């Protein structure tokens, strides 16, 4: 082979390689015969809902086998972004959060599921609104919808001689947390633990005051920041800076009884149930509604849905949609409720069977906490969401570590959102 030929050959190979990667989109719209369906998931070992859904689906559809594409949870959004950009043909893409969903849908990377979403089966699903795009179109269906409640350790309440929380206001909660704090040094038991996420202040404030986290006015954060800082100053929760630098886990704080209360999402229920079953903790727990701002009516909390979407480049588009409708429908809801995960389709039936699970608390307050009056979306979706999210995260750090005052931080948020995300 002479040099010119070699070069020409090399160039041809180089040019063909990316084409080969993008091609082969043999859609089997008839979906007959055995199909291998690929589904992107995160950390499958520690996220049992995926296995529950896959097993249930395969039992109902023996001709379809599921091949999970397992991705490390922390890398999931970036990995999926890269996959989709590269024209990957994974059939079902799990939407870990709404912000990324909005981006994929906006770029036209997902299949239109509007007709399924507006059908009678799915229109009552919690969190469906979060997936509504311009023109009333839907590109994903939620299968689980977590929301925030207040976890508490019954034994530690008994030991302190306090009655279990029912409907607290934030001020009552702060006082209670302070009075429940005991011990010092390594043996200190905190009254409550506020994780480092900004949502614990900002999303709660937005949900319970009606404020908008996309701006332009952020003064509604003030009261909730006062609450959070009062807890921290009173030593009733682990210091924010320490929690952040030590990457403290909220699960271990609660399960090793280092905190008496813990505001957290309902996804934590499945983990407690699993850990108690495995014998790694014996915490005696129950849940109460999230504390409320005074003046509101009923229980308002916030949450974020998780959804399945069909890749526009899917190899088996029809089978993929079949899976999405199954997983997000009543059968899927039943399958994940059986392992303690909160389905988006939360009917009375499923709620009852959920509380019948071994290890679930059975008191009335817990049941009431599980049926809040209103679940607001954790963060509104728009094309500015991701930028504003970064700003809110950075300024949250500064307020919580007291590098900035509450007013100073809010003023900074207001001006940064105006300048950087408009």
């Amino acid at each position, binding site marked *: 082979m002479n040099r010119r030929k070699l070069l020409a050959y090399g160039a041809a190979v180089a040019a063909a390689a990316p084409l080969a990667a993008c091609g082969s989109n043999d859609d089997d719209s008839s979906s007959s015969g055995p199909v291998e369906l690929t589904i992107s998931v995160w950390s499958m070992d520690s996220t049992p809902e995926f296995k529950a859904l896959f097993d249930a689906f395969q039992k109902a559809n023996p001709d379809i086998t599921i091949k999970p594409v397992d991705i490390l949870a922390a890398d999931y959004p970036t990995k999926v972004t890269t996959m989709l950009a590269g024209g990957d043909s994974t059939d079902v893409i799990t939407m870990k959060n709404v912000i990324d969903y909005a981006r994929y849908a906006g770029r036209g990377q997902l299949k239109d599921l509007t007709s399924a979403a507006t059908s009678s089966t799915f229109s009552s699903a919690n969190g469906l609104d979060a997936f509504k795009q311009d023109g009333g179109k839907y590109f994903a269906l939620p299968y689980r919808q977590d929301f925030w409640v207040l976890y508490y350790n019954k034994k530690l309440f008994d030991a302190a001689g306090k009655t279990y929380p029912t409907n607290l206001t934030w001020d009552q909660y702060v006082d209670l947390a302070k009075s429940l704090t005991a011990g010092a040094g390594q043996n200190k038991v905190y009254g409550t633990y506020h994780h480092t996420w900004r949502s614990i202040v900002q999303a709660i404030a937005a949900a319970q005051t009606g404020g908008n986290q996309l701006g332009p006015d952020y003064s509604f954060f003030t009261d909730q920041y006062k609450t959070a800082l009062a807890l921290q100053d009173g030593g009733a929760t682990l210091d*924010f800076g320490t929690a*952040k630098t030590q990457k403290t886990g909220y699960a271990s704080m609660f399960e090793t009884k280092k905190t008496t209360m813990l505001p957290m999402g309902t996804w934590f229920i499945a983990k407690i149930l699993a850990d108690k079953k495995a014998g790694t903790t014996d915490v005696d727990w129950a849940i109460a509604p999230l504390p409320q701002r005074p003046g509101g009516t009923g229980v308002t909390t916030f949450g974020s849905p998780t959804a399945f979407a069909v890749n526009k480049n899917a190899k088996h588009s029809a089978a993929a949609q079949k899976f999405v409708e199954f997983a997000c429908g009543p059968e899927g809801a039943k399958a994940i409720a059986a392992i303690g995960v909160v389905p988006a389709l939360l009917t009375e039936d499923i709620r009852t069977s959920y509380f019948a699970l071994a290890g679930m608390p059975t008191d009335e307050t817990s049941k009431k906490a599980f049926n809040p009056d209103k679940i607001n979306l954790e963060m509104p979706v728009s094309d500015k969401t991701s*930028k504003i999210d970064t700003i809110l995260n950075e300024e949250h750090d500064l307020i919580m570590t007291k590098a900035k005052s509450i007013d100073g931080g809010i003023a900074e948020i207001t001006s940064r959102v105006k300048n950087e995300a408009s």
Partner: protein
Amino acid sequence: MADVLTAAPPTAASSPPRRFSRRWRNTLIGWSFILPNFLGFAVLTLVPVIAAFVLSFMDWDSYNAPEWIGLKNFQRMLHDESTKVALKNTAYYALGHVPLTVLAALGLALLLNRKIAGVGFFRAAAFFPYITSMVAVAVVWNMLFNPEFGPINQFLHFIGVDNAPGWTTSTSWAMPAVIVTSVWRDMGYYMILFLAGLQAIPTEHYEAAKMDGANNWQRFRHVTLPGLRPVTFLVLILLTVQSFKVFDLIVVMTDGGPGRATLVLSQQIYRQGIVEGEFGYASAISLVLFLLVLVLTLTQFWFNNRRERK
């Protein structure tokens, strides 16, 4: 490849074309030796770099067709506070990291450039941090810097410092904490370079200086330092480039926080590109970072050449 080697038969008639073809033959053979490495470089580095250069004038979300927007990405950078903060922080990091690492590495090299028992062990010990995983280094130093339970602040309390810094939890101390960690990690590597440089200085120079009555400091100032100039130059270039590229240490240790106190340029590029999906804007920031490093390196070259000529 065999064809290439026999492409020009040695029996060519006239002599000028023959010389020409032999030269070409040698060139081609030379190229063919570099080719495997160059191909890898071209596909994995050169093409993406050129693509990034072009992309910096475009708006691209990685999926839909890129759109030519001229200098808009650069105009946007002028008004982007986060990028400005990142630039400032990167400069701060470099200004701390480069001189401190040079001083620490040179000090260690001088200390370990003598015949004492177990010098090999101490040299290995100083080099050890460099071969440790950056993530492990960052996590462990984060624990050492813990404001409440960390050994560093406990020690400071012990020696009577009441107002010990909050290190990675404080906006003003987070960057010094990162710099200390990076100096500790890098000094061993540059110590090796300095050691090699020290051993290349002929002992006659020291002897001559001694004969002329130069004391220790004078010998260091007038023999060691000039003798080390090529090595120092190399170390400065490497360190500057490395400082402007810092990423992993910051991501694991502080993730740019608290707030934006340790946000650096490469992290801002990652956020804009990979996280936000604005590859055009991210490429534009990369281009600015590249030009910045280029200008600094050229300045160093120019400076070094001038001093060499003196």
